[in-house]
């Protein structure tokens, strides 16, 4: 794929109203969360590294992302996802 030149007008997913908050977690936080659920990292839901939101926060394969979403039932819902390599 050719590399496009930055024009400063690219679509920024994180700024879109319908895209929830994404952040990459550091090692300590990950350990705490995994211990809290008593799981291994592989048991988390996954997200592709090519996912526009994941790419926007520069998440690398193996990172864990926290997503905070507005929920119609709970008001605020927190999710964690492990970044995996997309096959394409």
């Amino acid at each position, binding site marked *: 794929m050719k590399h496009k030149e930055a024009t400063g007008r690219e679509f920024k997913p994180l700024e879109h109203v319908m895209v929830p908050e994404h952040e990459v977690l550091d090692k300590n936080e990950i350990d705490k969360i995994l211990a809290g*659920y*008593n799981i*291994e990292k592989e048991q*988390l*839901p996954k997200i592709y590294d090519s996912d526009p939101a994941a790419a926007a926060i520069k998440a690398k394969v193996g990172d864990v992302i926290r997503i905070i979403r507005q929920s119609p039932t709970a008001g605020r*819902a927190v*999710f964690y996802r492990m970044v995996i390599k997309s096959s394409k």
Partner: protein
Amino acid sequence: MVVATPKRIKQIKFGLISPKEYRKMSVTRVITADTYDDDGFPIDMGLMDTKLGVIDPGLRCKTCGGRAGECPGHFGHIELVAPVIHVGFAKLLRKILRAICRECGALLLDPKKKEEYIEQIRILRKMGQSAEDVVSEVFKEARKSGTCQYCGEAQQDIKFEKPSAYIEVDEVDGIKYEHKLMPTDIRTRLEKMSDVDAEVIGMDPNNARPEWMILTVLPVPPVTMRPSITLESGQRSEDDLTHKLVDIIRINQRFQENREAGAPQLIIEDLWELLQYHVTTFIDNAVSGVPPARHRSGRPLKTLSQRLKGKEGRFRGSLSGKRVNFSARTVISPDPNLRIFEVGVPEAIAKELTITMNVTPRNIEEAREYTRRGPENHPGANYVIRADGRRVKVTEINGEELAELVEIGWKVERQLKDGDIVLFNRQPSLHRMSIMAHEIKVLPHKTFRLNPAVCPPYNADFDGDEMNMHVPQNEEARAEAKILMHVKNNILSPRFGGPIIGGIHDHISGLFLLTNSKDKINKNDALELLAKMEIRELPEPVGKENGAPYWTSKQIFSQILPGGLDIEFKAEICEKCDQCKGVDCEHDAYVVIKDGVLEQGTIDEKAVGAFKGIIIDKLTKEFTPDIACKFIDDATRLSIRGIMRKGFSFGIDDEYIPDEAQSQINEVLESASDKVEKLIAAYKAGELEQLPGRTIDETLEMEIMKELSKARDSTGEIAGRHLGMENSAVIMARSGARGSMLNLTQMAACVGQQAVRGERIQRGYAGRTLPHFDKGDLGASAHGFVKSSYKNGLSPTEYFFHAIGGREGLVDTAVRTSQSGYLQRRLVNAMQDLEVQYDGTVRDTRNMIIQFKYGEDGIDPMNSDFSKPEAAKRIIDSVMGKVKE
């Protein structure tokens, strides 16, 4: 224990079996079409050869030495004299034949292209995706080539004739020469195909060479999968598969004899075709274009593919679902005297179904008593199982004797009796309340009896519905049924967080009539109303009339409410005034219950109905399911007494409206017709104002529809004015017992517009709906507006339109149920293994997290208040004592 990455099935390999493999797995070659000799012993190298497994008791398998039941059976084989095509691959063979060279068997593509395709297929396979699209492109591309790139041979067209004939068409000077390809020719071509080429067409040459699609050896399935049955007459009746194999062997032999004798080509070809037919029907007896092979009686044979396919096939009929023991099925009928968690079981069924008692020091006397009573004397026993595991049938004669022999460690299969826990089910089992645990009540006659209040969860009625009953066979199952599935633990529906069991129809009408009346009820009547309940004392009477004490109907109802119940809510009959007057409601629609006393308000669907009943909801959530159960029992019984006290009926006279009302209705309809005519005139004159986003025609239709529905509503209103609370239908509609005011309007005033797909009726003849109208008539009556009421009767044209609209409704329901059923099936299949864990997460069987908190909020919808996020409010109110004031 933490399982890091749970193990999964890595792969399943599918392929074709090579003739070599067939011979390797075969234990014997089958050459004779005969099965048994004169003494009834299986013939060697026949279809029932004992090398293929045994089914007769006493014989031993010559291959594995196992007895009948131990030996799984072994495959044999038939050497086909001439190769035949496997029908399942006929279509694929056609594609391949057209894509390869008729001389050198090479795939007609350039080497570079082949490489590209192989690469594409490999990538798709690696990603776990289907390579179907690429392969079909390969076939399409390869077919285009007229001459072989490798040997220069000119290619010919190949015609395919169903089910398995391939004909090559050669064109010389405009004259077509047809030449039939025999399976041998095809096999030769396929054999020449290279492994690389096989890969390009999506086959794995190690597991599936193309030529293996043409059978030279036929496997003979083990006898265990085609057992013969001995009839009473001593005659043997063979399985359909065996019959088919006999045919194949016979033709195979005849073919060989004829060929060796040097028979003419024509006869050989005929026999070849016959062999092809038999092998084809052996595999699939429902191939289009092939007459199905029939039994002597005319019944089509059930061959291999028929055993697997369809509803009664191996997958759907034997693996996904099968027949079960300890179950019963019969028609259901209502019995309001049963408690809601009971089920009336016919004595005949109770005598047939059993529960196994393990005899212990504590129940030995009981067990002996059942045995003594025998199978004919209702709570008796049908079998006893001795300590050594032998089953002994209990009979009228040996009962006494056997009872004395019963010892600890024996088992007694005793008949069902009152109080036993059973599972009760009605199909379709769409939600968990479709199977609930009931307690048995043995009753005379032949139907299952159930309390009509449990109809809603089963969606049952008594127009001939049948239901199933299952008897759990061990303590664990019974305990689980009692704790998880008991009716009283399923009053609330997890679908919407409200009660799904509650009053229906007459229960609601009855309580409405009772609590809405200002009747003074004397002692006799009060006791009569409450007779079926366990009420031992009447409250203080409100006053005296003619020296006799009397009670109000609200007092009577209060008797079935538990003390400590405090609620206020608006009843179903609430008119939704702009300014709710609350306690001062003039319709008595504001219900106030304080400490279990109905102070004011009317009891209707909102209070005790299934789906809506607030009292039931509150009793289950804040009291106990047992109290709620008792309340439903009492409320339904009281209501039936209540409705019988007044009497309740509906007839055609209840649809009568006075003449002046009728003429008002006619006026409304008249003026509506005029308005429609005006709209049409405006449309024709081009003066109609177009609605945004609509064409002019759509605008006209919408305006007409709007006008007519307005007219129908106002006729309903006029009729409603003359149909008051003394009318049974109005009582039912307003209290929520059954029907709606719309139904009543249609009966008494005007049926209204008949619609197909939400539009007025347009279909029919060219330019008009019926020959009764002018072409291009856009008027109300020409497009399905029914002015008449059901009572007055419909005109012929109206009747016809009504039938059109009615038919659409029927078709819709038929289509919708099948579609939504399948949708639900897929959804349930996808989610059935997900489980909410103790830490609140939702996980699958691999322990992968699906949701971090169930439903994102961790709330159990069953215990929420009608799925509204107001559970907290209720708790705060009760803690603050707001309700109690």
